[in-house]
């Protein structure tokens, strides 16, 4: 397609749109690197939703009350829905769900490392809702204003549902804390396991996060990792107090001067190890996704064949 407008001018328009905090739409001109970054980030987010169905999903069958079973099944179903909107957002840039699924299964694209930790008790359903979905919300609410239109609009809906998920998790923990001693111990044990991985969800410290600066200039990212981590800690502390649980960090304390909490650093060696594939569940999560994809291949082929036959029949 020939264009009457020269590239420098298009680039200037693009920059002005981002500066005005307006949306970039799929048919707008955009730098190739921007397009690539959006696809990578949205795909990674979509994969996280889909892989994130697994740790909680395996507890649906063991939910200890029918009401909890309904809540959990509906929640995990929502995650599938989020994956669906996000894959649709990447389709507006000409990248299909099949291509991205292939990238996920072959390990060329990542998903949130948090899902490489196991869910070991029913309390984990609550903790994942409270801390993991809570951290996700901190990361995601600013993305409602991200510069790429389809992503930003998908995020508005996703954030509403995620905040609901977070609240169901908190409510489950609150209920369990009112129960037996065993239940209270189960909650504390679960919080102990998830606290540090939840802090890691904001990504490496700013001085070790190579993509942050460019993503912020493009309006894809709107806050740094450390800023978001601090907000998350400050918001979680009073919630833990209300629940009656503690976080496993001896350095966690209120700093009057900064009007914020000081806190310890997660084990970043562990973080990189898990990112690189050595977490407790990396192989299991991908194998599960691959199995579902392989087992369903004949169904997707049959649906395509059926659609083709219908087309011929009505032509």
């Amino acid at each position, binding site marked *: 397609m020939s264009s009457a407008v020269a590239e420098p001018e298009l680039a200037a328009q693009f920059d002005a749109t981002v500066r005005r905090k307006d949306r970039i739409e799929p048919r707008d001109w955009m730098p190739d690197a921007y397009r690539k970054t959006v696809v990578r980030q949205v795909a990674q987010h979509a994969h996280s939703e889909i892989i994130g169905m697994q740790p909680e999903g395996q507890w649906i069958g063991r939910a200890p009350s029918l009401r909890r079973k309904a809540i959990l099944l509906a929640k995990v179903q929502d995650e599938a829905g989020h994956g669906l909107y996000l894959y649709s957002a990447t389709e507006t840039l000409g990248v299909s769900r099949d291509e991205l699924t292939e990238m996920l299964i072959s390990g060329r694209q990542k998903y949130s490392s948090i899902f490489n930790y196991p869910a070991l008790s029913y309390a984990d359903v609550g903790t994942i809702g409270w801390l993991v979905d809570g951290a996700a919300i901190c990361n995601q609410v600013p993305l409602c204003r991200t510069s790429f239109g389809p992503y930003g609009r998908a995020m508005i809906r996703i954030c509403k549902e995620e905040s609901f998920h977070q609240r169901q998790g*908190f409510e489950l923990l609150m209920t369990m804390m009112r129960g037996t001693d065993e239940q209270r111990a189960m909650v504390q044990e679960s919080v102990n396991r998830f606290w540090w991985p939840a802090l890691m969800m904001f990504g490496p410290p700013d001085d070790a996060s190579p993509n942050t600066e460019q993503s912020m200039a493009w309006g894809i990212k709107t806050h740094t990792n450390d800023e978001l981590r601090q907000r998350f800690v400050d*918001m979680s502390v009073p919630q833990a107090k209300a629940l009656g649980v503690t976080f496993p960090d001896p350095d966690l304390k209120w700093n009057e001067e900064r009007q914020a909490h000081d806190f310890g650093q997660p084990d970043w060696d562990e973080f990189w190890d898990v990112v690189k594939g050595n977490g407790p569940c990396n192989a299991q999560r991908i194998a599960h996704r691959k199995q579902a994809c392989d087992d369903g291949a004949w169904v997707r082929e049959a649906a395509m064949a059926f659609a083709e036959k219908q087309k011929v029949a009505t032509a």
Partner: protein
Amino acid sequence: MPEIHTHEADEHDSAYAGLLVNDAHWAFGTDFEDPLAGVDTTVPEGIDAHELATYCLRLGDDALILSQRLSEWCSRAPDLEEDIALANVALDLLGQARLLLARAAAADPSLVPALPEGSPVPPEDALAFFRDDREFRNACLVELPNGDFAETVGRILVFATYRLSLFQRLTSHPDAVLRAVAAKGVKELTYHRDFAGRWFLTLARGSDESRRRLEAGLARTWAYRHELGEDDEAELVLEQVLATSGIAAPDVRPISTGGRHTEHLSRLLAEMQVVARQHPMGVW
């Protein structure tokens, strides 16, 4: 209420604002609620309360066990759309199970297993999680393993067709509670039958492999459908779906179950009940 520290007002606060506020605007309520709360559960004159209760228990068990099976598809379906659709069917059936188990418990409390003194476990959960396999009244059809997607589609088609036909009749049952459960269920089951019917046609006409799998899967469930009761209307609907799809009714004789469950139910319950049974005094 503890004070929540917040940063200057910006878009972050909205997502967290309500977390420590106990409001009632939850899809499933903030506390345990009897699914029949506020409903008059008096058994009408002339109806045997025990019979009504065991009937509701049978219908509730069918829904509960099939829901448990279908939820096994979660994160494993052939595509995201089917993952979501199967979860919808499972959720609808779970909703039916809750109402029917609660109805059974209200009509005849003696059916509810005894739990330790002071246990907060509500009657619907006592029935679901604290009965043994032999006390479940569901048809064998719903407890069989899922098999592949084609087998699951065939089972939903058979089950939803029979149950829809039955629920349509139950909308004039003398018990007002059962009548209301049936009226709600009719809408849900219409969707389940439609979902399965569309996939049945798609797999029948799709590829050689999908047709072969559909026929094999249907043969396995077909032999158990007589347990759902005699129903000419349901049979007629199934005949039409098969005819439209160009699939012959499987040439299989009804399996003699002797009124007993298959080997699969005990294992299904072992998974479903494990956490609840570890905490008979627990609140969830």
